[in-house]
């Protein structure tokens, strides 16, 4: 009961927060299911359901069998969401009688009118309390039904919400696909009025439910069959799946709008950056916060040698610029690595942070401006032409980036399984002992910095080509932070993690553009909840997963003797 009250209060605060900052009113124009639900009201539904769901969740100590929740859970759920409802209702009452607009400008008359469902503010309290309690009980009820039904149901609801929210995106793509398939490019069966149509909603719900239900009931057999195959077969299946994915990614620009292709290109750049930094941070455990410096090195080196307007006065063909840039970046990477060899963890982070800023300050400075163009940057980076194909065109550049991503992912996958990867791992865990085992700490650290720098510069090269010019302002601290964040989000040390992380961290904000000023707020909520729900990242590497989830009790027992002097970054 105490828990129910607590969760109820939290849910209450949240459901007051949304209307107060103006989200509810703004999102009321955004349809989820045409004529039935708007995004504004969906938020309340989700809050009330979630509160009930969380309260009814069976709690147990580690190692103990969870007790299935009884009917009393329904009551608790109702109480929790009821409390939230009463709070929201009281707020409406307050807002109705006292003018709050002087402080909270978003609390408009229309908002109050909407929140009181057309009736008086007093009735709003009753409606919200009763409605909240009912929804809370419903949410709690979800915990009572068996897992095999609950999971598909929750996923189906989520899928409907997602498909509805991505309407502007999908509604542009689906007609294209349909017409390619020789069908009528009409999507009114799915989308109307900027959201799902009623039929569309039912269709999505039923299809997802059936699909997930089938997978949970039959999936186990498929998984077992897969595990029963020989190693070679499994590798073939995996390879085939990856090939299909690559083909799909290659086909994607054909059906996407130019805007989306461009976003994909940006995501690709960040994947490259992420893969590079992943080697430094994820594999070798060297927390580098100045990674943007290598992006800058790549961009500036490309611009210098390619642009006719650069200070050099002469240009080189691209096939020479590419290796040259990589060599320059590697050398600079090793040069930066040199002085920080003795530093670990936090200290290393601070110093590399400084290096990142130094890189930016140098290119901006008057001292370097005769060569690097100062704040004006370098303009006129001509795009390379390969067999007469202009790579500036987002779709073409996309292909080059895609190929690079595949290549780099392959390289870092091979690295992680090699002797080098193992040495990096050992070094990350316990530098001293690794050294006593004969791991050349200096060599491997420099190798990590050099490889990371080379990969970062590759991204920088594309960056310069894409923009056609380079400016110092593009290389700020935020880039380093973003790249680090996408690695953490995806799962440290995991290659698929980096890719998914880049999509979420770089792609999502672009797709959220229609939410205007609330974009970053929503983005923040998504990030925080992700890190709470999956601290090891979306697709953790095998190692990380074990670290954070498997046998946590055993961990405590033996960990006292281990991990001293580990250079593990403590960002998560």
């Amino acid at each position: 009961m105490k828990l129910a009250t607590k969760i109820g209060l939290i849910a209450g605060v949240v459901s007051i927060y949304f209307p107060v900052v103006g989200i509810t009113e703004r999102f009321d124009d955004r349809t989820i299911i045409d004529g039935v639900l708007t995004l504004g009201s969906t938020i309340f539904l989700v809050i009330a359901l979630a509160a009930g769901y969380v309260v009814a969740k069976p709690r147990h100590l580690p190692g103990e069998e969870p007790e299935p929740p009884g009917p009393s859970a329904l009551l608790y759920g109702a109480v929790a969401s009821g409390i939230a409802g009463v709070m929201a209702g009281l707020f409406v009452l307050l807002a109705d009688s006292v003018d709050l607009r002087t402080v909270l400008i978003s609390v408009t008359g229309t908002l109050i009118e909407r929140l009181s469902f057309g009736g008086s503010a007093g009735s709003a309290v009753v409606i919200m309390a009763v409605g909240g309690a009912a929804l809370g009980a419903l949410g709690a009820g979800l915990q009572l039904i068996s897992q095999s039904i609950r999971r598909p149901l929750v996923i189906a609801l989520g899928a409907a919400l997602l498909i509805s929210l991505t309407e502007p995106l999908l509604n542009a793509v689906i007609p294209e696909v349909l017409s390619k398939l020789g069908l009528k490019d009409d999507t009114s069966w799915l989308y109307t009025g900027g959201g799902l149509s009623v039929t569309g909603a039912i269709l999505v719900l039923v299809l997802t439910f059936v699909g997930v239900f089938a997978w949970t009931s039959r999936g186990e057999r498929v998984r077992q069959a897969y595990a029963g195959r020989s190693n070679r077969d499994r590798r073939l299946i995996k390879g085939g799946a990856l090939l299909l994915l690559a083909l799909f990614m290659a086909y994607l620009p054909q059906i996407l709008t130019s805007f989306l292709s461009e976003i994909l290109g940006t995501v690709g750049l960040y994947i490259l950056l992420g893969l590079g930094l992943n080697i430094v941070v994820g594999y070798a455990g060297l927390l580098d916060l100045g990674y943007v410096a290598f992006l800058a090195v790549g961009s500036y080196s490309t611009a210098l040698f390619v642009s006719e307007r650069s200070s050099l006065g002469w240009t080189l063909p691209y096939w020479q610029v590419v290796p040259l840039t990589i060599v320059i970046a590697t050398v600079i990477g090793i040069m930066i690595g040199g002085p920080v060899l003795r530093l670990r963890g936090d200290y290393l982070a601070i110093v590399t942070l400084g290096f990142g800023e130094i890189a930016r300050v140098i290119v901006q400075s008057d001292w370097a401006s005769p060569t690097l163009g100062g704040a004006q940057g370098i303009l006129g980076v001509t795009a390379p032409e390969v067999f007469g194909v202009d790579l500036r065109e987002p779709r073409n550049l996309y292909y080059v980036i895609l190929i690079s991503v595949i290549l780099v992912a392959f390289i870092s996958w091979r690295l992680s399984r090699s002797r080098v990867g193992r040495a990096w791992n050992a070094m990350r865990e316990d530098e001293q002992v690794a050294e006593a085992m004969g791991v050349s700490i200096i060599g491997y650290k420099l190798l990590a910095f050099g490889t990371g720098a080379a990969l970062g510069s590759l991204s920088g090269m594309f960056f310069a080509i894409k923009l056609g010019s380079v400016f110092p302002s593009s290389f700020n601290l935020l880039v380093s932070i973003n790249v680090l964040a996408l690695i953490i989000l995806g799962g440290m040390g995991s290659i698929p993690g980096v890719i998914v992380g880049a999509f979420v961290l770089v792609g999502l904000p672009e797709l959220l553009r229609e939410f205007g000023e609330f974009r970053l707020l929503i983005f923040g909520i998504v990030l925080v909840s992700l890190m709470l729900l999956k601290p090891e990242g979306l697709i953790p590497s095998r190692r990380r997963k074990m670290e954070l989830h498997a046998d946590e009790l055993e961990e405590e027992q033996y960990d006292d003797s281990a991990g001293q002097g580990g250079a593990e970054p403590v960002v998560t």
Partner: protein
Amino acid sequence: MSGSEQTPKQTGEPILKLVGVDSYYGPIRALEDVNIEVYQGEIVCLLGSNAAGKTTTLKTILGMVKPRSGEIYLRGNRIDGKKTTEIVAQKVTMVPENRRLFTRMTTRENLEIGAELRDDKDGIEKDLQKVLEIFPRLEERINQRAGTLSGGEQQMLAMGRALMARPEVLLMDEPSMGLAPILVEQVFKTIKEINDQGTTVFLVEQNAHMALEIADRAYVLQTGNIVLSDSAEKLLNDPKMQEAYLGEVT
């Protein structure tokens, strides 16, 4: 120093020799004029209480702490001032205090990293099998993360990891620490077996009784100074030793 007596294994040139070694941590002197000789095929034990400088001695030998003065010889060649990796490459391997395994790596990976400096793939695989023969428990745990092993298994893995380097001199830092008495006995038995197969062992211990049982000779370290050195047998019966380290009232 009390008068020491030659034991049968003390023949020829010592494989490891410390001459007048002083080591410092900043301004603090941790070792003072330490002289130690270890001969081929011996088990030599360095005894002492906490903070006597036992671990520092090992670190100094491996070049992780640089001696301020004095000389260290390995097979007659000076090694003080050399880099750790260079010294390790000369077949000197350490089993560190508290095991210090790579806890997030698997048993196999831990063993493989022990062979970091070797290039003979077949030889490494053969030695891996040999280590698993000595420690059959590790075979069962081969793909398990080292951090999930029990204390005894961890000690076995730490020893196995060191053996993977095919050391000629094995430095061991308190292998009995934190283990149940029965496991300690087992560990020391294994050390003896490893020694019987030709590996010279230099052992640092607080558990003087157990260590002296298997050792040929021993040195006693007190606040950075060697205060006693003799054959293990004599030390076991030395009344001063019994009073100070063996916990027996005379």
